[in-house]
């Protein structure tokens, strides 16, 4: 059972790697105190999911999903659905990255810190003084 599991993980190396990357990104997003790093973690997490999707669409020995010479046989092309989903996903993650970076810039201008915990404390104190 155990050997089976490891064997499967090695054979599906891309999936394994993408899950590990997802975990790394998730951990950075949750735990790293630096905001810029957090945002990078978010990007790593998202791209890991996209890698996972892309691997799922791949079929050994088949080609790019662009019709060549009028061949419209299923046997000739990989699954186009995951590619489409990933394209949509990439745009979504760019938008949230830009938004979070803009927030980071504003927060740094205000509190001169990139540490989220520190920022939260400083913001609280600022509020109490008013």
């Amino acid at each position: 059972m155990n050997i089976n599991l490891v064997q499967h993980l090695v054979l599906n190396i891309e999936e394994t790697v993408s899950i590990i990357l997802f975990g790394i990104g998730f951990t950075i997003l949750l735990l790293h105190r630096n905001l810029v790093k957090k945002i990078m973690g978010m990007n790593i997490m998202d791209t890991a999911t996209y890698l996972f999707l892309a691997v799922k669409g791949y079929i050994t020995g088949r080609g790019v999903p662009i019709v060549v010479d009028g061949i419209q046989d299923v046997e000739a092309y990989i699954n186009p659905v995951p590619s489409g989903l990933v394209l949509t996903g990439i745009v979504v993650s760019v938008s949230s990255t830009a938004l979070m970076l803009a927030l980071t810039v504003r927060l740094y201008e205000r509190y001169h810190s990139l540490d989220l915990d520190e920022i939260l404390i400083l913001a609280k104190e600022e509020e109490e003084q008013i």
Partner: protein
Amino acid sequence: MSRKRDNYEESRWRKFKSWLDGETDLLEHGMDAHEAVMREEDPIIVPAHGEGKEILKSKGIWRFKQFYKVMSVVLCLGVILTLLWTVAALPPRGDANNPDNNEVAARYIERGLQETGAVNIVTGMILDYRAFDTFGESCVLFIGSCCVLLLLRLDGNSEDKELEKMVAETNDRHFEPKNDIILQKCSCVLVPVILMFGIYIVLNGHLSPGGGFSGGAVLGAGLILYLNAFGYKRMGKLFTEKLYKRTTLCALTFYCLAKSYSFFTGANHLESGIPLGTPGAILSSGLILPLNICVGLVVACTMYTFYTLFRKGGM
């Protein structure tokens, strides 16, 4: 005895009264250490650089943080291991008999060319079969740029703001290479090539890899390079905020109307009446080409705007 009891009652009652009046906390020690310790700390007068760090080091918070960290690490490891365990049970990679290679993908491949007119199956899929998702995606980009605008645009209404704007501009120039001749000559060669490449990617979205989004990003990169080489003055003649707003508005409105038309006719089983053309020609595949151009324009403008907003809070 009774006296003691009185005191006891009194203190409880007082506590309750003061809590009712909203002056203190009924549960004086707070429920979570995080909040409670913060309340105990002396207020720090100026929130200046680095001072928050000392608070973080105080003991209670430190202990809470350690606990929190350990728990989070356990959680993350749990997530990774569970997902790995799941992956081991998933269908193998690259097998043609996997559940996801079903009739859906088969139809996109087999009949996509006839139904959408796009040679690039992926483009045909995202802009025709699953166009609602893609429309949502452009809206994400739109609202993202609105949020960045909201955060970073400096509005020159009051004097204060004018000053801020000037400071932002001087700060910005501080790092900007001014009239660097090497940069200018290089970008003279590079910018046209980059822009041509971007336009090529946008226009050939239905024929070759790429499409509105990637082409738009390349176009945006070209504009950013031009801006860096020649500065805001020259760029200002070419590209203003008004132009940005109008372009985005027109492109998104066209996108919205065109897709509404196609959704409406589709759902009501009407003929859309848009010719698909010969597959493979540049003017083919119905709405996909104009939609790609719209998306390309929006993306190029948005990327350039992101850049200028981050640099100096305006266009």
